[in-house]
């Protein structure tokens, strides 16, 4: 499995959307202040690699009790170069005592929130 993760596929897989994994658990998102805190932390750090369009951190809401992608973080950059920089730089960092795992995410799935 590790070999699979490492097999650098052609750069055709790079997109404008960065997927950040293993950073949060659903319970971290229940408190509104903490949720905004996390969003700010992620935005501020990602902006260091280039302009970002927006970001999405799925969580349970009153209207949607079971959204997909809870526990994942998605950041859309203006261009794939910035996204690629962030992907390399943030991998292996620590976020609230958890190791950050990064991967590209398809833009069309991001648009329709098919997390």
């Amino acid at each position, binding site marked *: 499995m590790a070999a699979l993760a490492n*097999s650098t596929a052609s750069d055709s897989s790079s997109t404008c959307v960065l997927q950040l994994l293993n950073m949060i658990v659903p319970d971290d998102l229940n408190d509104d202040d903490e949720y905004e805190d996390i969003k700010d932390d992620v935005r501020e750090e990602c902006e260091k690699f280039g302009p970002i369009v927006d970001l999405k951190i799925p969580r349970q809401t009153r209207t949607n009790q079971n959204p997909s992608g809870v526990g994942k973080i998605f950041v859309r950059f203006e261009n794939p170069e910035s996204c690629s920089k962030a992907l*390399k730089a943030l991998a292996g960092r620590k976020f609230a005592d958890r190791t950050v795992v990064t991967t590209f995410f398809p833009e069309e799935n991001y648009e329709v929130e098919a997390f």
Partner: protein
Amino acid sequence: ADGARKRKRKNRWAAAEDNHVANLINLPTSISGSMTPEQIEAYVLNLRIEEISQKLRINDVVPKDGERSPSPPPQYDGNGKRVNTREYRYRKKLEDERHKLIEKAMKTIPDFKPPADYRRPLKTQE
């Protein structure tokens, strides 16, 4: 869960050099190959299990100042020794998380093998 959580804004990021655990588990943290969403999920699940196992092994269980939640009231054993020490609480928390993740991995990842130093908790706790 923690009633009065009015934590001051504290940046949750730390440098990669400070991530001793990631350096020890030595698993790729940037997934650049073409894995399916299911494979990615399984990969991250396994990585978190390894991460927790490594934390427990090197006793890196207590978060840094400012990342800790408020301590509960102390509990003492019959000899007046505190039982719910900080280290005990955080170790227990990680063991519980790892247990849940291993149960999930055994159901979802074919040929998954729990870490050698993992012991299933005895039932009838809580």
